[in-house]
């Protein structure tokens, strides 16, 4: 048992901390969030230059071949600084669907661009009848000669508005897992993306496919056989998203801890009131629970244990409830100032809500745990 970070990991964490402290102060987070795209190509470029976009892509495809714990160390710091980028969508989820199921040609063609941050991919999965199971995929792909024609609507597709390519998940047969993935050029005829509005952390889009015709060769992996790749890639993505959420929870905790020592009421710092302490303890508990379940799952994944998927679902279930709870607890300590848009706490609150559901909420992952642990049939 050794629960410390490796030297390399510590170095990467330090680099990330320094980077975000300089490049992403809270005023900048708000500025980016409030911009039309919610995306800073400048920060994306710098992150790519630092090599973080290629971390979990193998060296032969232009990546650095780090393990997931390494990347998790960096995404934790990203979460702590409320950095919103398409890193998990493009460089983990899309990249690993291609790695899992793609042909050598597809890997050669797509991965180096993704690894360098020059090509942004995203996955279009969820639909109006929202969910993350195989059966939730209803968007139709019909064969037409050597092509497939895609029709339907995808919702909550992260960063589709700044993506170059969209991996569209479509139903190609009626079997529950009869699912295929197609690479669709964002500029292709019949593709419309529209930013969805609301209280959303990462920017998400409605993607409409109106008779979009793609060659059969654009399918990643076998027709009807993509579910396995999607699930494997999703596990990997969730494994690093978990530390992102833990990092956000940690910041929400630290904000209320620090505020409680500064803010005076009834002549004493409010942190001396037990009721305030209890809120802070909730935030700490959720941050710690999210962090340790996340890293334990990463260890399971990187050491090839067969209970890795269970661990990843466990950690996501914890973080999906823990990150929002930590933010709520922090708001309880901050009272009015906490909802001031310049103060910075709301940057975390809004992200906690978005990531709660993304790639499956706590209820979904608990049910998945039960299946993986053979508690249910």
């Amino acid at each position, binding site marked *: 048992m050794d629960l410390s970070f490796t030297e390399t990991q510590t170095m990467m964490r330090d680099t990330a901390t320094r980077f975000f402290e300089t490049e992403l102060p809270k005023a900048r987070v708000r500025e980016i969030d409030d911009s039309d795209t919610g995306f800073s190509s400048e920060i994306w470029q710098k992150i790519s230059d630092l090599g973080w976009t290629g971390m979990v892509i193998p060296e032969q495809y232009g990546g650095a071949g780090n393990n997931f714990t390494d990347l998790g160390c960096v995404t934790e710091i990203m979460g702590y600084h409320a950095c919103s980028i398409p890193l998990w969508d493009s460089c983990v989820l899309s990249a690993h669907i291609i790695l899992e199921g793609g042909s050598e040609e597809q890997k050669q063609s797509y991965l180096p661009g993704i690894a360098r941050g020059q090509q942004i991919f995203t996955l279009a999965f969820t639909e109006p009848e929202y*969910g993350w*199971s195989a059966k939730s995929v209803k968007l139709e792909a019909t064969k037409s000669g050597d092509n497939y024609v895609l029709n339907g609507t995808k919702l909550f597709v992260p960063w589709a508005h700044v993506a170059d390519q969209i991996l569209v998940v479509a139903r190609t047969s009626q079997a529950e897992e009869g699912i295929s993935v197609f690479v669709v050029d964002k500029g292709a005829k019949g593709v419309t993306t529209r930013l969805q*509005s*609301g209280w959303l952390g990462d920017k998400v889009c409605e993607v409409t496919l109106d008779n979009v015709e793609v060659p059969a060769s654009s399918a990643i992996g076998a027709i009807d056989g993509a579910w396995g790749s999607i699930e494997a890639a999703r596990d990997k993505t969730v494994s690093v998203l978990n530390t992102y959420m833990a990092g956000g929870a940690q910041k929400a905790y630290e904000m209320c801890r620090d505020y409680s020592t500064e803010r005076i009421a009834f002549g004493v710092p409010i942190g001396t009131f037990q009721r305030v302490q209890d809120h802070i303890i909730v935030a700490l508990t959720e941050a710690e629970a999210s962090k340790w379940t996340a890293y334990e799952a990463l260890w399971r994944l990187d050491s090839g244990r067969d209970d890795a998927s269970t661990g990843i679902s466990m950690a996501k279930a914890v973080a999906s409830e823990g990150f929002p709870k930590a933010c709520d607890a922090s*708001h309880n300590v901050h009272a009015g100032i906490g*909802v001031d848009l310049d103060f910075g706490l709301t940057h975390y609150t809004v992200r906690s809500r978005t990531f709660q*559901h993304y790639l499956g*909420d706590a209820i979904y992952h608990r049910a998945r745990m039960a299946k993986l642990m053979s508690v249910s049939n």
Partner: protein
Amino acid sequence: MDFSLPYTAEQEKFRTEVREWLEGNIPAEMRNPVDMRDFSKEQYLFWREKHRELAQKGWLYPTFPKEYGGGGLTGDHETIIEEEFHRAGALRGLTNGVVYPALFVWATEEQKQKFLVPLVTGEKIAWQKFTEPHSGADLADYQSKAVQDGDDWILNGSSVYVSGRPRPEWNVPGPDYLFGPMLTDPDAPRHRNLGFFMIPNPTEGLDIQEQELLNGHDQHAIFLDNVRVSNDHLIGGDHQGWQVANSSLEVEHGGGGKAFPADEVIENLIDYSKENKNDEGFIGDDPVLQQVAMTAILDSHVDGLMARRTYWMYQNKMGIQYEGNMANVHNRESQLRNVARIRDVYGPNSLLGTQEPRAPHGGAQEVEQREKAGQRHAGGSTNIAKVILSRRIGISRTQERAAPTPSNTGKA
């Protein structure tokens, strides 16, 4: 026991009258928007005018005595008005209602004519100033000062989270009064060092600025820079501001109850569960989400019962001890529990805003999500609400009875 709402024949006739009037007099575009951030200048001006008309009908403040401009009607009438206004999306009053207990209990007859009547008749409107940037609900470190100067008082200080409409950027007249405590005697002991003032606006030295908050833009920072008001703007004695403010807080903290504790958020939740699907089928049929939805309904139902119990006691001038505070604490906490449940049931659809075509209930749940991150602290934090509740049930160092209200003092 009888838990029924007032539905006698006479009352149903009154209901029809109210409903028809609203239908005939409130154009669709003047009804409350889903997100009150979208409440417009035109709506504001419409309602300023309309409230005067409503006051004349006795429907703006139905239960207030006629001699002060109220409707002289029963609590049951008020309940019907509340229900029908809610149903129609009609705006009830632009004055922060917590001013009324303070004025009814503490103002002199002359002050009632001067301040109370114009508010009740809708001629004027008033906002509450209470929280300072560096002092919370305790007022222990209150810094907004009033210094006597002949027959006048000179006011200095600032407040934040002062709620109300209109928005400063509309360039229409603002509130006619700001009301709240000021430090009159820095040397006096706590709770004996404040006076409660009606501060007229506009006045030289008084500035109002909008705050940029997650939950909307109806909250303001106000600044008092040598604002001069005459002594008749002081309500109660110059050392009784805490007591006067408490008559307000008593009602703000749930002490008046609610006969018609509508919970649209939960009504929406039920409808949504029945009619919408996720990938597993109808949400209402999903055993897990069904439990979540029912738990939300139960919390809301208990909340309504507690509010109704307080209302019944208040209307019947029974001695309220802890009941209003219990209802207040439950209301704050159950709403927070329920916003989390809403996210479970609706998924990310709960976060879609009013501009989004697919937003459930026109974006109402997104508004709820944002507001409950912020409004949990309106009228003081839940922490403070629990401090007060603890006093009222007799376990705290400080024992405390309910502050004087129109109900327990028999005034109004």
